[in-house]
């Protein structure tokens, strides 16, 4: 235990040193991202560590959480909604009904050409109806003041409400994917989740009526109780504090906001840890690990392995979706173009593996450590590369090397992942 405490202390020291030698602002930004990553890593750890499920679509579930923030807490666009909001909902319902009808038909009818024909007809007719309802509505919505709106807007509700909705969105997507890909070869889930993540991002990028696509949605509200920096700077109480500490009010306000975020995220993280530790030590957790360690034996004992896997897959994705919503709230904006699988899927995996798969504290440690490493290299990388190449004469090669510093971290992380998998597969804090 003391070893684990030392590890956490070591990581804490990294953040303190960053604060002292770089800036506290940077240190807190990194900490906030690392805390969010830690929550995502917990979700992944539940899937991988508890059940051996390989989810390569973390990015997609993160983005679905972000979408929830857009839909729940961005300001309403009544004109946009009036232009075709209900028709869009109807269209989407038609689409869902089509799939449901096709599934029903293929379940209820007898195998044969007739069934295939029926399913095909349902799908074609349903698709045409869906497009017929959706297309004009989408066009109408997107036609409304596209420079600022062109979308259906959100509900204008507080950010905190959006977070569980993000979890719900992610859970729904996880249910659909898991229903299909679980129970087959383990690699199939990996491939299917890789695909769904890519599609979610494409939807966010292209469906302007929903997320304004690449035009981005900005000025999302802050979650309670985090205030805007500007408001702080105008508040007499805050200015009073700043004076007492002798600090610059602008700088202090950003740090104050980041501190509040950090506390909020830490609270959520602790709650997730508490829940998942409880789950791990409950009969349910023991059963999950029994299934992971020997699927055949567990199945023989009458456990419905696929159903359990689906359950744990949904829970894990919901946690990722929750964290994804928190991230979008923190950034105050939704920028679909920034979702990148290397950053939002595979980096999380490195965190889980390095930290110790199967151990919640390990995942948290891994997330804080790798998150720090990833982001510090982003800000320090070019400088360090500049130092390294300072002996070289100016030229295209030197410029190229300095430019390529961010790519070094992919290489480094890949090497770290491989080294850990090889020499310390149980991670920094191994499963008990």
């Amino acid at each position, binding site marked *: 235990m003391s070893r684990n405490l030392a590890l956490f202390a070591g990581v804490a020291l990294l953040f303190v040193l960053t604060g002292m030698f770089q800036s506290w602002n940077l240190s807190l930004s990194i900490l906030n991202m690392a805390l969010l990553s830690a929550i995502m890593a917990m979700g992944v750890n539940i899937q991988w560590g508890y059940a*051996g499920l*390989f989810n*390569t679509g973390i990015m997609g579930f993160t983005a679905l959480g972000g979408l929830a923030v857009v839909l729940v807490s961005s300001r309403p666009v009544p004109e946009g909604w009036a232009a075709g909001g209900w028709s869009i909902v109807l269209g989407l319902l038609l689409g869902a009904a089509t799939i449901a009808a096709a599934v029903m038909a293929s379940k209820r009818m007898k195998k044969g050409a007739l069934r295939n024909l029926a399913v095909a007809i349902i799908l074609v007719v349903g*698709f045409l109806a869906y497009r017929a309802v959706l*297309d004009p509505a989408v066009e109408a919505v997107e036609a409304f003041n596209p420079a600022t709106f062109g979308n259906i807007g959100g509900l204008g509700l507080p950010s905190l409400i959006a977070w569980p909705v993000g979890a719900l969105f992610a859970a729904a997507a996880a249910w659909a994917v898991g229903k*299909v*890909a679980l129970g*087959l*070869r*383990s*690699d*199939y889930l*990996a*491939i*299917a989740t*890789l*695909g*769904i993540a*890519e*599609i979610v991002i*494409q939807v966010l*990028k*292209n469906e302007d009526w929903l997320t304004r696509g690449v035009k981005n949605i900005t000025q999302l509200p802050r979650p309670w109780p985090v205030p805007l920096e500007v408001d702080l700077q105008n508040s007499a109480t805050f200015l009073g504090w700043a004076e007492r500490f002798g600090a610059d009010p602008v700088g202090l306000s950003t740090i104050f906001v980041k501190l509040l975020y950090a506390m909020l995220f830490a609270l959520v993280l602790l709650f997730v840890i508490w829940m998942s530790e409880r789950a791990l030590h409950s009969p349910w957790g023991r059963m999950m690990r029994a299934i992971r360690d020997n699927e055949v034996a567990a199945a023989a004992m009458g456990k419905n392995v696929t159903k359990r896997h689906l359950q744990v897959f949904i829970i894990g994705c919901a946690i990722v979706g929750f964290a994804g919503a928190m991230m979008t709230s923190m950034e105050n904006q939704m920028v679909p173009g920034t979702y990148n*699988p*290397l950053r939002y899927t*595979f980096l999380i*995996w*490195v965190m889980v*593996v390095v930290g110790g798969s199967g151990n919640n504290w390990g995942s948290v440690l891994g997330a804080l450590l790798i998150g720090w490493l990833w982001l510090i290299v982003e800000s320090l990388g070019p400088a360090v590369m500049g130092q390294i190449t300072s002996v070289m004469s100016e030229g295209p090669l030197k410029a*190229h090397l300095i*430019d*390529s510093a961010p*790519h*070094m*971290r*992919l*290489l*480094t*992380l*890949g*090497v770290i*992942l*491989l080294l850990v*998998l*090889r020499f310390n*597969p149980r991670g920094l804090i191994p499963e008990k």
Partner: protein
Amino acid sequence: MDLLNASITFLNFVFVPGLAYGAQLALGALGVTLIYGILRFSNFAHGDTMAFGTMVTIYATWGLQAAGITLGVLPTALLGLPVGIIATALLVLLTDVLIYKFYRKKKAVPTILVMVSLGVMFVMNGIVRLFIGVEEQDFSDGARFLISAGDFKKWTGLSEGLAIKSTQAITVIVAVIVVAWLFWFLQKTRTGKSMRAFSDNEDLALLSGINPDRVVQVTWIIAAALATIAGVLYGLDKSFKPFVYFQLLLPIFAAAIVGGLGNPLGAIAGGFVIAFSEVMVTYAWKKVLTYALPESMAPDSLVQLLTTDYKFAVSFTILILVLLVMPTGLFKGKSV
């Protein structure tokens, strides 16, 4: 109604591009399926292996061009290709010795190997970005068209043109040669048969005195060659961008699974199924239909099922359907 022009339009916008893309996917899927059959895991680093091979080929091509060596009407990249293949083969053999071999000896479960391949993917991705960057690179030279749309119209007097890019023709020809060679190799040579035997029944293959290390090495070399060829053909036909190659992983895996993982014939069929579905679903049929239907029925809309941005949704949907209906694929692959 003008069926002739309708079919020319169809050939020009759907069939020819689909054929070339299908050939590229098929070559990629063949690599994935071979690795799966012999080494028994889904290699997530395959897309980045393609990117690496293409990158080396690009450097070789630039070198040749700088030295004034070109292939005339053919792209110089064909001369650079062997360099790319050799470098990629060396790289994957190195990763095998350094990384995969350990897990093979330990008989690690497939998920661990997939995870390891993720690490390899990171490294390869990093190497590629470090050297050539993330930007798009165009390295095709030589004649642009085998038949240009203008020439075609002049010869036939039709109002629609059929353009065949030289890269499309080269893709198909190279793919046919490679696939023919591969099948000859697998069916007729001692080494090829030993690979099939190893894939079919590893224990019995060992009992028969087949050297597993040699089988694995040959597999990696062939997979590296296939990946490089697929990557270079794709890059010539479209353009080279590292991230796009990573994204190709999805249609390639879909192709391999649709055909039946571990089955080379299936990988080829799967490649074309995915490619044609993608092209057909994302193509705006208005022009073809305007020609093919009586004037009164001519469509007003684009008649496009999905925009090209959603091409991944097509691979994904087909993948899902296959997993639902026949998880072993069109051709019998390894068990689910």
